[in-house]
């Protein structure tokens, strides 16, 4: 296959649309403005960015439903003291539902590591890694409903159709492994934005997230759709392809030159490769018993999410650019309007050990150096109580915690702060747009320059917003 690209013949847009090869926008920009003759293949492997990248890939651990920050990573002694008292500040103009008085956390907090960051007893395993984690205690969004908030977090917009952050990242950086998708999302949820949360929207289709399974099914069933043939064995399929490609080459000679016809010929070969590569990437039989044990695969409580985390590491190793893992039990997820104690205990128990294992594993393999791990939900929860027996909390987009670990961020840091009770972000406020800007920065991209022209104007992940929070960079 001839990968030489002549900028005189093809527009940049045309190239991005029609090439099956995984180079990204930044590489392409450099390629088309650079000396002629630079091939697509070499551009794909070149490290081109707006400035030096700290992270090469992202693993996003999405806690669907909104985990409570005041019960996990945002320790509020005053909330404990004033348990049961009225909330002394004004509540937001728009709330999801009415809430009552302050509710102290039912969980004890304790300091960990050299940094001495407080973590609640919900996350004893993750707590062992606090010195590698940068807690973003002042994240805030704008939407108090699940759908709007999830879309805002994933796409930067809660009411318009925009590409997801995984698509932007893959669009910007391309992929490191042409035989695998550049962006995968493991067991995603179809609710609250569904595919919009991994969609490429107006970006070319190959930057779309490829879902593996769905939240309603166990992660043992997490695989790419149509990756296997129910009828033909590999030998038959290869013969089918040979016949088809012979026809295609003749057809091309008659109709060409036509980039889309060439790209389609290439796409079939890639698909054939992917059929082989994907099962290998997912083959957990290659892992040692110790590793399986570390991720909690031997325990019913942690087994499902543990497998997702382990798959994430395997994809990271193979050069997948953006990997999302979703924790979403099929009913209420982290959405404890009531039954907070039981619900959060169960949720945390399911994810705590696997997440800690992922951090340990990435570190041991040297992958944490250039892998950015991002943890969080679409919002946090109110410090005020809700529900029967005062055992619940409402949605709270006004101030909540997400955390980052790995490539380029300062470990052992609590960045930003909410008020004394954890309701509003007050110090070093980090809007979701800022989170996106900072994430792109860590990947070596300027969020104002990563653009795509659509319907007559340049679009960005951060729209017209977003500030990089340099203070968290290592």
């Amino acid at each position, binding site marked *: 296959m001839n990968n030489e690209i002549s900028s005189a013949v093809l*527009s940049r847009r*045309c190239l991005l*649309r*029609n090439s*099956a090869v995984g180079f990204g926008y930044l590489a392409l920009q450099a390629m088309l403005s650079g000396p002629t003759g630079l091939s697509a293949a070499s551009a794909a492997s070149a490290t081109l960015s707006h400035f030096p990248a700290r992270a090469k890939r992202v693993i996003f651990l999405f806690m669907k439903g909104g985990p409570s920050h005041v019960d996990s990573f945002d320790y509020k002694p005053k909330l404990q003291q004033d348990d049961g008292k009225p909330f002394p500040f004004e509540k937001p103009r728009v709330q999801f539902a009415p809430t009552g008085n302050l509710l102290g956390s039912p969980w004890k907090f304790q300091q960990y590591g050299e940094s001495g960051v407080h973590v609640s007893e919900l996350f004893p395993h993750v707590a062992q890694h606090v010195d590698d984690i940068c807690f973003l205690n002042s994240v805030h969004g*704008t939407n108090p409903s699940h*759908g*709007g908030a999830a*879309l805002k977090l994933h796409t930067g917009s809660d*009411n318009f*159709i925009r590409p997801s952050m995984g698509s932007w990242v893959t669009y910007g950086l391309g992929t490191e492994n042409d035989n695998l998708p550049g962006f995968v999302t493991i067991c995603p949820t*179809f*609710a*609250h*934005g569904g*595919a*919009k949360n991994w969609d490429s929207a107006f970006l070319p*289709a*190959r930057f779309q997230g*490829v879902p593996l399974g*769905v939240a*309603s099914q166990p992660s043992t069933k997490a695989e*790419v*759709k*149509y990756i296997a*043939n*129910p*009828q*033909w*064995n590999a*030998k038959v399929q290869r*013969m*089918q*392809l*040979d*016949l*088809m490609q012979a*026809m*295609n080459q003749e*057809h091309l000679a008659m*109709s060409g*030159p036509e980039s*889309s016809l060439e790209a*389609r*010929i290439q*796409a079939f070969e890639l*698909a*054939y490769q*992917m059929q082989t590569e994907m099962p290998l990437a997912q083959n957990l039989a290659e892992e040692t018993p110790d590793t399986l044990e570390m991720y909690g695969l031997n325990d019913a409580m942690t087994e499902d999410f543990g497998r997702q985390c382990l798959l994430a590491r395997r994809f990271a190793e193979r050069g997948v650019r953006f990997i999302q893992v979703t924790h*979403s039990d099929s*009913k209420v997820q982290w959405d404890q309007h009531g039954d907070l104690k039981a619900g959060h205990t169960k949720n945390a128990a399911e994810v705590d050990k696997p997440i800690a294992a992922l951090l340990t594993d990435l570190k041991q393999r040297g992958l944490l150096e250039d892998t950015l791990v991002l943890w969080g939900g679409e919002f946090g929860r109110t410090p005020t109580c809700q529900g029967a027996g005062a055992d619940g909390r409402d949605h709270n987009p006004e101030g909540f915690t997400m955390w980052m670990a790995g490539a380029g961020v300062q470990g052992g840091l609590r960045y930003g702060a909410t008020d004394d009770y954890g309701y509003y972000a007050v110090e070093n406020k980090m809007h979701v747009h800022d989170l996106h800007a900072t994430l792109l920065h860590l990947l070596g991209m300027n969020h104002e*320059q990563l*653009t795509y022209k659509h*319907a*007559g*104007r*340049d679009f960005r992940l951060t*729209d*017209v*917003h977003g500030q990089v929070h340099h203070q968290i960079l290592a």
Partner: protein
Amino acid sequence: MSTPRCYRRSLCWIALLWILPTLRLSPCESRAAEPPAPSSDDLKFFEAKIRPLLVSKCIDCHGEDTQESALRLDTYAGMLGGGTSGPAIVPGSLDESLLLTAVSFKHELLQMPPDGKLADDEIQLLRQWVEKGAPHPESGDAGSITPRRGAIDLEEARKYWAFQPIVRPEVPEVEGQPAKPNPIDAFTFSHLQKQGLTPSAAADKRTLLRRATLDLIGLPPTPEEIAAFLADETPSAFEHVIDRLLSSRRYGERWGRHWLDVVRYADSNGLDENQGFVDAWRYRNYVIDAMNADKPYDRFLQEQVAGDLLEKDERHGEASGDYSAVIATGFLTLGPKVLAEKDPVKMEMDIIDEQIDTFSQAFLGMTIACARCHDHKFDPIYTADYYALAGIFKSTKSMQNYTVIAKYNERTLATDEEIKRKTELDAQRKAKETELAAQVKAANAALLKEIGAAADSAVPADAEQKYPEETKTQLAKLRKEIAQLTADAPELPTAMAVEEGTAADTQIHVRGSHLMLGRSVERGVPAVMNRSGALKIGESESGRLQLARWLTSEENPLTARVAVNRIWGWHFGEALAPTTDNFGRLGEAPTQPELLDWLAVELRENGWSIKKLQKQIMLSETYQFSSQAIAENEQLDPENKAHWRANVQRLDAESLRDSLLAVSGLLDTSRGESVLDLPKWKLVFDHTSKDATTYDTFRRSIYLPVIRNNMYDGFSLFDFATADVTTGSRGTSTVAPQALYAMNSELFLSASEGLAKRLIEEFPSDAEARVPRLYEIALGRLPQPHEVERLLKYASQLEPLLQTDAKIEDPHLAAWSAVCQSVLASNEFSYVE
């Protein structure tokens, strides 16, 4: 890369950018009394207290050198004339002077200066000054101050090509050639000639037939149709083909689908809460019928905006059971909406915004929704224009409520009489049910007494059998009556549709926020498009009817231009103006503006008949070009922008699926109706992520459910329209997952097997005869000898291989299925030349 500038529809505050509401000052709405001539004391006050404050705090960004948001505070004219959207100061009015709103920091969206609030006494000084009437040394000239945006700007803006009235252009001559019988060719050939490009030769008959058939009905020609066309050697052979295709019922199923892209049709809400739109299919079928009937395009648009308001006789009389004009208004309700928005006022304004966005892009090719928060940055659309339209939609009832999770508006499709009858029968049924319950209760009480049980003890399970015969008969009679009443009064059908709401003008929402309202704006259409005065909207009317009539009036050139441009694009794979949904300055100008206008005139003058226009286009030499490359042209215009040859186009998602079903004999050509097996208002997805939508029908693709947020794979993989926004031209991507789908999906496997069975049935023993048949069915042509040989070789090699596979029951059929799959997955099947 430039930074994005048209911050379209972004709601949140743009940091440090200060935008004020638009105020178009027409002479009749002068807003404040002439400022009194300032006294010298007042001027001293200004010079001593106010000017220094402005200079130190404001002028850096709003002065001579820099005018953030085009606002200047260093001149009196600048203050009154204001920034991009209107005055900062209204002398004497504290509430209307947005300078004061900004410095008071009371509003979260509008706070100035950006680096911190002024001291309280400074704010007090500004208040005093405005209260005094804002005395200023330049205020003597106040009478001559004109708003930044006046009539003069509009006249200038109207010179832009898209706003120009459509005048029939002269048909050009092609130098050195006899006059072209089809004016379209005169335009295109002269265009090519000017660029030094050679027009392609005509495509051969087989290619042309495949192109036209897939183009008009989305299915490949059958071998019989090919034979008939080849046999017809009359000059009008192709015309006959076009006529046949245009009158096929399959035509509306293809061209209706193009329209559904434009109106972002879907069967579910998508966005945050994915509510099923169980009645959306009625609108879909309305569109198919309208296309098949060649409903005049002007009429078609009017019905979608205001079908319910058109005169009864224009609606063909609802008594006859034709509710199509009401169903058509479903257009306004089909959009994706944030249904769990906790703020009902914001929800309403967001829904209106979606309506404006779709209305303006779909019909006018303008991005009017950009002006929700600020004047359009590139096109002459003011914020006031936006709220003039918003008033019309706000006066329209599109929703039943704005509570979480909100419900769209619907209309019962029945006459008043039918509704009355239904109400009566329901009441009768209810009465009978009450009677039945009372009788059962009495009989139970009697029974308990009879068996000596306590009155409050449980009734035996078989109680009814122990009732007296007389009671049993009575109960049976009642039940029969209830059943009959239920059968006589079935649920009346409903449609997603709008109706008139509470008519009122809408206030400008500063920065698009409903929390900060500006002045009220008269309902109407954007000033730049309005050449003959305001719409005449009655006090109790929403204005939709007037909007619909204006939309298709001579006065508005956009509607016809946008329509013919898209039609051209759907035929050729590339529109004359490539950005089909944006004719504004950020769009790309048409490559052949005269041709565009000529087509627009034709559409209007032929009674807005789309079919007539299509026939004219398809009869042109231009449509019939071959797709063969010409080396010299390749050098000059490699992307074929000037259209010197036919584009090689990939089948779209629907045509691909429908063609697979057609060639394999699986296609079910019956008409589809409802697609969701879901009670009304239910979500297609809740927290469980379980997908209950089924796609197991062999009907044409237009009848499959369009589920936002979780589109059918056969759609989403092949560049189906997003169904969220107007899509006048789809992209074409080529990605590996498409190849996986062709290799491994049920659709491709069953189509391949269906086709193989068809071939084996036709030629049970003569394998060689199958190959030409296969080529003709699938590719519309006959194979060359080496192609026959190659295919047979693969089939015979595959068969022994498959014999060893225990899964395979019939290795011969399997081998032929496998080679059929290769043909169906080939580029030639997926592309039209």
